[in-house]
C-alpha cells in the first residue's frame, strides 16, 4: 500500500503544481489573486470536450487548443480589465471572482448543467513495484513534468522570462531598465491561463466535465500557493507535491474530508508562523 499511496500522491501533486504555477505567476507579477483561475481550467476541459469528444480531433491537439483558448481569453481579459487594477489586491480579487462567476454561468447556459464525460484516449494500468498506475494518469503526469520543465527553461533563459522575473522583483526599477511592464503583464496573465487551460484539458478524460469543475482545483491551487509562498515558483512545485502526498496519506488512511481539513490546517499554520510561505518573499 505504501507504493500506491506514494504514486497516488505524486500523480495528484503534479496537477496541483500546474494549477498553482499559473496562480502564483499572476500574483507574483501583477499582485492579483485570480479567483477565476479554476474557470480557465474548466475552459480547457470544455475545449477538449468539444474538439476531441465531439469533433474527433486528436487528443493532444485538443489539449494544446485548450491551453491556447484559455490563454487568448486571459490575454483579452488582462488587457481590458486586469491591467487597470495591477497592484490593487482587493480589486483584483473582486474582479476575478466576478469573471469566474460569469464564465461558470456562460458554460452552464451553453453546455447545460449535467456533468459530461469524454472517451479516454488511454486506458489500462501498469505496475510500478506494488502500485497500479493508470495509463491515463501516467500520460498526464509526464505532460505535467514536461510543462514544468519548459516553463522553468522559459523563465530562466528567455528574454521575456527574465523580464517577468525583473518585474516581479521590482517593477519600478525594471521599468527604468527598459522593461515594458504592459507586455509583461499581458504575457504573464496569458501564460498563467494557458497553464490552467492545459491542466483542465489534460484532466478532462479522467474526471467529469461540468461548469463547476474548476472550483476544487482552484481551492487546491490556493492552498498550494499559500503553503509554497505567493509569488514563488519553486514554492508552487514544492507545495503542490507536498499537498498531493499528504492528502494521499490522509485520504487513504482516514478519508478525503480529513485530508481537506488537514490541507487548511496547514494553511492556517503557515499563515500564522511563516506568512510568506515555505519559499515566499516578503511583501514589498
Amino acid at each position, binding site marked *: *500500500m505504501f507504493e*500506491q*499511496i506514494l504514486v*497516488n500522491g505524486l*500523480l*495528484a501533486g503534479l496537477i496541483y503544481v500546474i494549477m498553482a504555477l499559473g496562480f502564483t505567476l499572476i500574483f507574483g507579477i501583477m499582485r492579483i489573486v485570480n479567483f477565476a483561475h479554476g474557470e480557465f481550467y474548466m475552459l480547457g476541459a470544455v475545449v477538449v470536450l468539444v474538439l476531441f469528444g465531439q469533433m474527433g480531433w486528436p487528443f493532444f491537439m485538443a489539449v494544446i487548443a485548450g491551453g491556447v483558448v484559455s490563454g487568448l481569453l486571459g490575454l483579452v481579459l488582462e488587457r481590458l480589465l486586469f491591467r487597470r487594477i495591477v497592484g490593487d489586491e482587493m480589486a483584483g480579487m473582486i474582479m476575478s471572482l466576478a469573471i469566474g462567476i460569469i464564465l461558470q454561468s456562460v458554460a*452552464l447556459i451553453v453546455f*447545460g*448543467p*449535467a*456533468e*459530461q*464525460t469524454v*472517451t*479516454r484516449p488511454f*486506458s*489500462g*494500468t501498469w505496475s510500478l513495484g506494488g502500485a*497500479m498506475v*493508470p495509463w491515463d494518469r501516467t500520460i498526464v503526469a509526464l505532460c505535467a513534468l514536461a510543462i514544468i520543465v519548459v516553463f522553468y527553461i522559459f523563465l530562466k533563459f528567455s528574454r521575456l522570462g527574465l523580464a517577468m522575473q525583473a518585474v516581479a522583483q521590482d517593477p519600478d526599477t525594471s521599468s527604468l531598465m527598459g522593461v515594458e511592464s504592459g507586455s509583461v503583464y499581458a504575457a504573464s496573465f496569458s501564460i498563467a491561463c494557458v497553464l490552467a487551460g492545459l491542466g483542465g484539458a489534460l484532466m478532462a478524460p479522467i*474526471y*467529469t466535465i*461540468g461548469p*463547476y*469543475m474548476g*472550483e*476544487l482545483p482552484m481551492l487546491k491551487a490556493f492552498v498550494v500557493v499559500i503553503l509554497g509562498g505567493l509569488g514563488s515558483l519553486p514554492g508552487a512545485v514544492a507545495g503542490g507535491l507536498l499537498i498531493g502526498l499528504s*492528502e*494521499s496519506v490522509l*485520504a*487513504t*488512511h482516514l*478519508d*478525503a*474530508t480529513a*485530508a*481537506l481539513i488537514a490541507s487548511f490546517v496547514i494553511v492556517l499554520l503557515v499563515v500564522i508562523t511563516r506568512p510568506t510561505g515555505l519559499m515566499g518573499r516578503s511583501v514589498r
Partner: protein
Amino acid sequence: MRRTFMKFGLSAIALSAALLSGAAFAQAQQTLKIGIIAPLTGPAAPWGLAMAEGAKVLANDYNAKGGLSIGGKTYKVEIVAYDDKYKAQDAVSAYQRLVNRDGVKHIAIAAGVSTLAIKPNIENDKVVVMTAGYLANLLDPNAKYMYRMWGIPADYYPGIYRWLKDNTKERRVVILGPDDESQREMVALSNKLLKEHGYNVLSTEMYDKGLKDFLPLLTRVLATKPDMIDLGGTAPATAAVLVRQAREFGYKGQFFIPGSSAWREIMDGAGAAASEGVLNMVYVDPTNDNYKRFAAEFRKAVGQEPNESMAPYTDGVNVLIQSIVKSGSVEDTSQFEAGFRKAFPMKSMQGDNLTIGGGMAHGIDHQVAAFRYIGAIRGGQLKIIGKIQ
C-alpha cells in the same frame, strides 16, 4: 363615404364578435397552475429538469385533449417552475413567489432539503405539496397537506436487498456514499439490511460530494477485498468515475447501486467493459413506449437525455392533478385528501398500478407506492431483471 362608413361598421362588429367570443372562451376555460420547485441549474439539475419538463409534457397532453373538468369547469393546465438550486433559502423564495404572486395552491418539489424548508408554511397557507424528497421526517401525522410521490429508501430498500440476496452470490460488501443528510440515512439503512441478510459489511465510507479523485479511497477499500461495492445514492456521473477507477485498480467484483439510476452515465463514462454486470435500481424500463415518447419531448426541449427520475416525478405530478380532479375543487385544498384517496388505483407512465402507501412507516398514508426496477448492464445495454414495489 357611405361605403367607408359601412366598411368601418362591419369591421367594428367583426372585431367585437371576436373579442367577445375570446372572452367567453377564456371564461369557459380557466387555468390550473401547478407549481414546481426544483434545481433547474447546478449539479442536481438533471433531476430538477426531469421534474419540470416531464410535468410540461403531461400538461400538454391534458391540454391537447381539451383540458381538465374540475367541479363543472374546464381547466387548462399550466406548469409554473422555479429554480431552487438545491438550496433551502432559494426554495423558500420560490415558494413565496408561487403562493403569493402566482396564486398557486398545489406544488411539486424535488429536493428533501427544499421541502423541509417550506414545510412549516404549508399548513397555514393550506398549500398542497407533493414532494420527491427522501428525508423520512417530511411525512408525519400532523402534516395534513404534505404528500410524497414515491417510497423512500426506508420503504423500498427492504425489498431491493431481499431481491439482491435471493439473486446474487456476492457476500463481502463495502458501502460508499456521498456525504449529506439523506445519504447518511441511506447508508445506515443499507448497512443494517445487509447485515440482517447475512452479508459481511467490510466498511462504510462517506465521501465529499465534490470528490473526483477516488484513488486514495479505492486504495483503502479494495485492500479489504470486497466482492461487491454498494454505491448507495451516488450521483450518476460520479458513479461512472468510481466504477472506472475501481476497475482500473483491478476490482472485478459486483457493483450495486440501489439509490440512484446511473446506468447510462456509467456506460458512457466507464465504457462497456468496465460497466458489464453493474446492477442498478432504475425508475424505468427504457423500452417502454410511453416513456420513450416523454423522453423524445424532453430531448426537444432541453437537448439532452432525461434523467429517468422523470418517470416517477411525472407520475407524482399526475397524482397531484388527478387528486385535484377527484376532489372537485382547485381552490378548496381541504378537499384534496378525499380526492387523493379516490384517484387510486391509477396507472403510472409505464402502465404499472400505483397505490397508496406509507401509513405504517410514516404514520400517515400520504405516499404513492411506486414501482422500482432492477436493471443489469449486459453487452452495453440495460436489461430489466427484476421489479419491486
